[in-house]
């Protein structure tokens, strides 16, 4: 009886320690977010007079409003609105195109085996490890030739091309787990290359489509390097605009506006994760087990 009790209290102690440790780590991890949120709803005087971490004395969304529609970016004071739209206009087609092409690649590599398919796949994978800095100049030149320099269209092209490595990897590893008999059955049923792709392969690959979309969305939305290198002025994506807001040096540093702007720039990826996150894990593990 007494040993039972001892064992139980030891168990309880262990649990307590684990939870305490986890809560502590979570607090440390969430601290920056906390600072961002509370700072973004304080007014500037309060920030400069009061504490950094404490709760706001009165909540105001002025900073959010300013960040969205009137903060100064470089010399123009128009807020993030236009740049947010730029990012949306860039990310939606780039995600859709790179996912679609990745799906087609994965389908072709696994279901229409041809000589050198594995070598080709291996070469494609190089793209995953390619440092972007190494290709900045060639891309700039190529965009110039194509007449896409400095435009959102140019960014769509670049992001699509550099996403193909990852999306192909995702889809190839997913499709290799789908039985080859499916393709053969469809061939006997009279379906052709694209019919099989649209009617059989794509509907069966929803989990990996979600994975690919989340991955690509996050990569492209958060990209700074390509944005700052290949666009300027009113054509830049939101990440570059955010940088320019924060770097404005005239007057007092507007921490609240900076924080609100950073939140605005970060919210879309958060939303995507929250909405589709569970598919993300499921799709990743499905691919891993089958591949």
């Amino acid at each position, binding site marked *: 009886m007494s040993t039972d009790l001892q064992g139980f209290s030891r168990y309880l102690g262990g649990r307590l320690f684990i939870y305490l440790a986890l809560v502590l780590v979570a607090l440390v991890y969430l601290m920056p977010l906390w600072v961002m949120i509370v700072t973004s709803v304080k007014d500037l005087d309060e920030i400069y007079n009061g504490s950094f971490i404490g709760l706001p004395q009165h909540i105001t969304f002025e900073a959010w409003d300013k960040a969205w529609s009137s903060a100064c970016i470089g010399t123009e004071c128009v807020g993030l609105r236009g740049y947010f739209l730029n990012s949306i206009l860039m990310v939606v087609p780039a995600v859709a195109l790179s996912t679609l092409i990745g799906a087609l690649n994965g389908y072709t590599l696994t279901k229409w085996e041809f000589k050198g398919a594995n070598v080709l796949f291996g070469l494609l994978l190089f793209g995953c490890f390619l440092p972007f800095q190494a290709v900045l100049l060639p891309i700039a030149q190529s965009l110039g030739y194509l007449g896409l320099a400095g435009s959102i269209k140019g960014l769509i092209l670049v992001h699509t091309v550099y996403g193909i490595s990852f999306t192909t990897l995702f889809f190839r590893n997913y499709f290799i787990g789908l*039985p080859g*008999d*499916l393709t*053969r*059955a*469809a*061939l*006997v*049923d*009279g*379906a*052709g290359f694209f*019919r099989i792709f649209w*009617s*059989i392969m794509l*509907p*069966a690959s929803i989990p990996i489509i979600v994975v690919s979309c989340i991955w690509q969305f996050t990569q492209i939305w958060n990209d700074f390097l390509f944005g700052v290198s290949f666009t300027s002025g009113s054509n830049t994506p939101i990440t570059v605009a955010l940088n320019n807001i924060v770097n404005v040096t005239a007057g007092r540093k507007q921490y609240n506006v900076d924080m609100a702007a950073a939140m605005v720039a970060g919210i879309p990826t958060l939303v995507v994760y929250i909405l589709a996150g569970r598919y993300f894990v499921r799709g990743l593990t499905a691919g891993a087990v089958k591949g």
Partner: protein
Amino acid sequence: MATLQIDGVSKSYGDLDILKRVDISIDPGDFLVLLGPSGCGKSTLLNLIAGLDDISAGEIRIAGQRVNELSPRDRDIAMVFQSYALYPTMSVRENIEFGMKIRKIPAAERAEAVKRVAALLQIEPLLERKPSQLSGGQRQRVAMGRALVRNPKLFLFDEPLSNLDAKLRVDMRTEIKKLHQRLGTTIVYVTHDQIEAMTMATKVAVMKDGYVQQLADPETIYDTPASVYVARFVGSPAMNIIPASFRLTDRGPQLLFRKPDGSTVNLGDVRISDETARQYSGRDVLVGIRPETFRSVTAGQPGAFDADVEVIEPTGPDTLAFFTLGGTEVIARLEPRSVQSGRSACLSVNMEKVVLFDRDSEKRIQ
């Protein structure tokens, strides 16, 4: 319904020859079973017929028309796969309809065809379900439905029953046979299960290492196997292959078997032409004796011999007796309770059913 001719068809991957000059021809309404162990090339041959793989040499004709260059969709065939290969995101109805949709058959006609096949296979209640919600046997039915609905010239089955449990396999076997008799379609069916071949086929092609060893109806294959390989592959328990020496004496041909104690047994009159008998006289041969051609008899009858039964295995309808003859273990299928293990039994052989094989080539002696 159509004929199928396979004319000197070969298939190789690089240096590896999978099929070597295969010749098979079947008539409309035939049920051809390609039988053999894994790696014998039977599935490859089926894929060649379906058009899922390219033919290296030779010609395949369906209903008299050369199909070598035709894609699967233009061959007017339907195929049932071992894995069923049901489209996972489509309902049973959509699975069955898919081929017709692609061929742009009007919706009303499609619905009619689905109804007919669903009734035939008794899968009406399953039509709106997804494949993942079906049991193995139900999936099997749907896969057959997908093939049947098209009414093609030729049905191809690739080991369709091997993923089912034993009981279901026997039921489906009978059902496929019934379907064949009812619809009279031409079928090519691949299996490694000799029982499936024997029970369903009108013609069996026994294959080994890319060659067709024998092409004949099941009875012929069973009674007069063309080679030791076929003899051992078909029938369960397998045909006994016993070394013996053959002699042509004044009183006719003799087959002498060595017994464990050193003495010999003469099983006597074997059916063989005089010319062949002279050719093989004095030589060793392999004698093929089906287990059920042994009979338990009373001592003193002509052709009777004593066998020291080592083990018996009662199966219910028969008892299997194991003994040694000609230096090899022999199985006899006898009446229940007719023999006991550890005792001597008096047996005779129905010599009309015995086949002889050449010792070197292992081919049947005509």
